[in-house]
């Protein structure tokens, strides 16, 4: 039996009295979240945007939510607004690329990702995230563009090399996985975490290998 918490009581008693609208977050009841997925997506995206409307990264995320709600015009409008605010931020392009990638728009995704290398090639976080996004879906050649760009700047980042290896392993690509695992070991041959993480990667990827 669910506990009768104060918040739960407020919601159940306030609704019939029309007081629901005055309680913060009140419309987001359990019933609401069981409803239409598109409506949930839009409402949550709108709620976030109302609280923090101007941040370019948030705009890119809202665009992603609209894309998932099959509202391409709203998604593209949000992406456009994000890029107007931050035209040279690699992470904004990465978020947009990831949004397209997750929803099956490969060409649009690669266009956005490739912009990272043109406008913000020293943004290591964006390079890593882009590399991982693409490695996880098996786009090996595209992933390695970003991974190599990162590795040229950070030659001994064994933790990130292991992430790359793991991402390739999870998409069934053993050769690039091996390359990045061996670089991680070469970088830190006496670090127990290196071997543990490689072990975990193989243990967890058995089904796809």
């Amino acid at each position, binding site marked *: 039996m*669910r*506990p009768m*918490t104060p*918040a739960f009581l407020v*919601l159940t008693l306030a609704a019939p009295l029309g007081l629901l609208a005055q309680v*913060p*977050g009140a419309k*987001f*009841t*359990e*019933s*609401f*979240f*069981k409803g239409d*997925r598109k409506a*949930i*997506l839009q409402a*949550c*995206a709108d*709620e*976030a945007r109302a*609280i*923090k409307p101007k941040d370019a990264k*948030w705009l890119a*995320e*809202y665009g*992603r*939510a609209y*894309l*998932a*709600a099959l509202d391409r015009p709203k998604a593209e409008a949000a992406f456009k607004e994000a890029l107007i605010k931050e035209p040279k931020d690699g992470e904004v392009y990465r978020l947009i690329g*990831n949004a397209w990638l*997750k929803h099956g728009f490969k060409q649009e995704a690669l266009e956005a990702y490739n912009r990272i290398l043109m406008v913000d090639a020293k943004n290591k976080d964006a390079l890593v*995230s882009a590399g*991982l*996004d693409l490695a996880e879906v098996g786009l090996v050649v595209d992933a390695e563009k970003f991974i190599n760009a990162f590795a040229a700047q950070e030659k001994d980042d064994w933790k990130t090399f292991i992430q790359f290896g793991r991402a390739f392993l999870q998409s069934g690509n*053993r*050769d690039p*996985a*091996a*390359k990045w*695992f*061996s670089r991680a*070991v070469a970088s830190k*041959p*006496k*670090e*127990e975490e*290196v*071997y*543990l993480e*490689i*072990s*975990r990667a*193989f*243990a*967890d*990827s*058995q089904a796809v*290998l």
Partner: protein
Amino acid sequence: MRSPLALLLALPLAAQSSIYGPGVDEGSFKGDPRKLAAAFAERAYLLKPDDARHLASVGRSYLLAGQRKKAEELFAMARARDPKEGDVHRMIMSAWIRAGQRAEALKALEELQFMDPKAHRAFARGAIDLLEGGMDRQAEDLMERAWMLEPKAWEPCVAFARAALRRKRNDLAARWCSRAAIANPQEEKLWKELAQAFAEGGAEAR
């Protein structure tokens, strides 16, 4: 000085020496993934045989590599090292769940709750592990317990809702999304994560 277990574990090293140090190259990563998982777990253990969480993690790799006896030894060592650390018990439970060993998972769940009764973070993470392993009733009970210990924490609620969505348990996801919304309605990150959770069927975001 190495423990007897360490010496015992070291015996197979001779047969796989290319994996363990100088001479590791890309060729070292070919072959049976289970054997590789075990071989690297062995190296990881030998480099740090004293840390409870590390021992539990290494044990997990052995278990998934099909080496149950070694895994059980390492789990026992982990528990002995830090018997009151909830996350160690949670990691052991998670390993058993992943290996499909329900009875052992239930024992570890009991130990988790008994040995560290206020470990709300371990409970919340453990609840997700249980849900992903198809142990729904236990997952819901543990998540309720986590929430009662820390009702203002929205992030565990969203994480559990994501896991519920991945399992197509929309009823459960709805309940925990609602609780997250009540916990902190002014936090824009919450709404962004809820939108993402529904957008991607609960898949983890980066």
